[in-house]
């Protein structure tokens, strides 16, 4: 979706605020928010792409007003309601509805270390070979999907060169909407800064994006 989250190339956001010796969390509620998201996420009711999409669905003005962890909190509430793990009535009252079904056993302390050790893996075996080769010119399609996508607006319509092939990975555009993993070949594509931003950009510089085969067409 063409949301405000897709902000590559925007102007007017101001200077970058730097902080020396920054703590991992600035407030305890931030730590609780990420821990809650990961703990409930372990129930398997949604995936990483659905979680990202829950952030993108925050209305633009609020997205820009909120801090990073406020967005995570808003996203978690959306995921809980969408998945049916928590009803809107329960979210409003803060009290469980009597008779509401209890969930599967929650994430326990013993399962936390294995959860990290197992990591997150998105490469999948596929039968078809990659359509594009390293060194080949490709164009990022000019598409405007209303759902989740990982093709940023600033790359659409531009021509780049395949720099490497990462294998076939879970396709976010379908996975975010629970329409299957639909794995596709994933390419690192090099776009010259001038292709993306025009003649004022440095002739030497480039931006690399990881783009699924579905996002690309031959030149």
């Amino acid at each position, binding site marked *: 979706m063409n949301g405000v*989250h897709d902000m*590559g*190339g*925007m102007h007017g*956001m101001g*200077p*970058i*605020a730097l*902080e*020396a010796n920054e703590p*991992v969390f600035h407030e305890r*509620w931030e*730590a609780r*928010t*990420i*821990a*809650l998201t*990961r*703990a409930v996420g372990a*129930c398997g009711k949604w995936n990483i792409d659905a979680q*990202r999409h829950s952030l993108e*669905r*925050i209305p633009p003005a*609020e997205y*820009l007003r909120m*801090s*990073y962890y*406020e967005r995570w*909190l808003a996203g978690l*509430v*959306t995921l*809980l309601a969408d998945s049916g*793990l*928590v009803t809107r009535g329960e*979210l409003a009252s*803060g*009290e*469980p509805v009597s008779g509401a079904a209890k*969930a599967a056993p*929650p*994430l326990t*302390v013993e399962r*936390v*270390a294995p959860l*990290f*050790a197992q*990591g997150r893996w*998105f490469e999948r075996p596929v039968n078809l070979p990659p359509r594009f080769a390293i060194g080949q010119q490709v164009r990022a399609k000019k598409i405007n999907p209303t759902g989740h996508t*990982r*093709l*940023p607006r600033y790359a659409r319509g531009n021509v780049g060169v395949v720099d490497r092939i990462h294998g076939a*990975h879970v396709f976010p555009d379908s996975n975010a909407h629970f329409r299957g993993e639909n794995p596709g070949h*994933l390419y690192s594509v090099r776009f010259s800064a001038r292709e*993306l*931003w025009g003649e004022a950009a440095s002739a*030497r*510089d480039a*931006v690399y994006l*990881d783009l*699924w085969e579905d996002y690309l067409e031959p030149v």
Partner: protein
Amino acid sequence: MDHDHQELPSDPALRVMALESLLVEKGLVDPAALDALIDTYEHKIGPRNGARVVARAWVDPDYKARLLSDGTAAVAELGYVNRDREHLVVVENTPERHNLVVCTLCSCYPWAVLGLPPNWYKSFPYRSRAVIDPRGVLREFGLDIDEHVEIRVWDSTSEMRYLVLPERPPGSEDLTEEQLAGLVTRDAMIGAAKVSLAGGSR
């Protein structure tokens, strides 16, 4: 669009507390597991892991070659770093090339080797500007990249994660691997700083 943030108290600290209590009552969350997750984020993952990878690459050319060809496997070799396995690509800074990592769409970041990202990495100014004005962005970090040096910006649009292998600082020839790791800053592994003998606070 469904959006429920106003159904809980407006102060985020109170809202999280209310939500946690609801989720515990519903049997969806074990508070002890939350503590263990937070302990992992605060103490078990972090940029020290990435710094060890960088220092090993500086002292061991074979390891460096493996790291640049398959970052995921090379990081897994150093067992103590393998706390949150992820697809990793390592890109090398040289006198002719400077790499900078960003995620314009959200804030994807190599948690396994760097821990959770700093606020600046998640900020709108960085996410919006890194791809269109990397040289201006780097100047705000105190880095003036020569016009003859190529800048490569890596926008993390997939589950591939990117780690910058910074240049080893001049004058570090006599340092041990451990001492070298102590010089490597988080920002240098994102591409927003160079490594110096003085170390750094970011």
